[in-house]
């Protein structure tokens, strides 16, 4: 695994992978949207409005998954000082923040017709909002600290401490009385939704995952190129630029 974590090797391998990840992303979105908007039946109580969950659930899942990627990459970067791990964590943060924003927006749009309000300081909603702020804080660390080695160290600490919030998000619906419904997908006794709805949801989650992989590859490639640019500029004596 370690030999693939070499920046030059990563660039070669990722360029081979990219056309595949892009193609699979488009296919999964096409099938996912067809299932979500056409094949999945209307809910007997909520009508068609429940279809918001085909965007909301994958976005919320990706918001937490992306944070997990940041925390693991940061731990690897922190312990083994691996430059690619730090770049992977840094590249993931804006994607995670965008997924969190989408989960919050679609959650509000779900809340109004279902609960009668766009927002409530419920444990699940509040912990998701905190996740959004942690993402912003993490991005700010990288943006404001000029020394990249120091920035990587501080960002890694922020990321590793922040993982506590992801655990709180996951169990918030069990630990507290929340307006947000409990888990209906990952449960001890299996999913509690109709088979066609489940298929649509799983397709959309898979589409969001492949979309994330594609964008993450672009972003890591971009950061590797920036590192090369910085070192070339230093060699030329023009400063890091």
């Amino acid at each position, binding site marked *: 695994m370690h030999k693939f974590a070499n920046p030059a090797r990563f660039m070669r391998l990722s360029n081979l992978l990219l056309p595949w990840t892009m193609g699979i992303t488009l296919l999964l979105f096409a099938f996912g949207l067809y299932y979500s908007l056409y094949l999945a039946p209307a809910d007997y109580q909520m009508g068609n409005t429940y279809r918001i969950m085909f965007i909301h659930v994958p*976005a919320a899942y990706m918001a937490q998954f992306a944070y997990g990627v940041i925390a693991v990459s940061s731990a690897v970067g922190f312990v083994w000082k691996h430059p690619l791990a730090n770049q992977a964590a840094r590249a993931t943060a804006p994607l995670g923040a965008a997924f969190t924003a989408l989960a919050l927006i679609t959650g509000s749009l779900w809340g109004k017709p279902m609960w009668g309000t766009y927002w409530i300081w419920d444990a699940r909603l509040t912990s998701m909002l905190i996740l959004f702020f942690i993402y912003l804080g993490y991005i700010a660390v990288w943006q404001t600290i000029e020394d990249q080695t120091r920035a990587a160290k501080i960002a890694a600490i922020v990321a590793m401490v922040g993982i506590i919030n992801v655990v709180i998000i996951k169990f918030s619906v069990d630990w507290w009385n929340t307006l947000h419904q409990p888990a209906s997908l990952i449960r001890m006794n299996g999913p509690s939704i109709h088979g066609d709805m489940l298929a649509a949801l799983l397709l959309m989650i898979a589409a969001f995952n492949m979309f994330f992989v594609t964008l993450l590859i*672009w*972003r890591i490639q971009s950061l590797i190129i920036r590192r090369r640019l910085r070192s070339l500029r230093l060699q030329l004596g023009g400063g890091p630029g």
Partner: protein
Amino acid sequence: MADLFEGNNIFLLFSYIAGAVILVGMTVASWRAKKKDEADLRKLEQHIGEQGMRE
């Protein structure tokens, strides 16, 4: 089309619009950043190459 703006369908419509805007925005931002960095690197490597030739 008029049905979309009636009752709760408007929330469904706005959710998918928000999804499309954010996902497309992420794609465009990541793609443009990558292309810009690649162009900058090409320019700098060309500049270094020309400088090396002169020396």
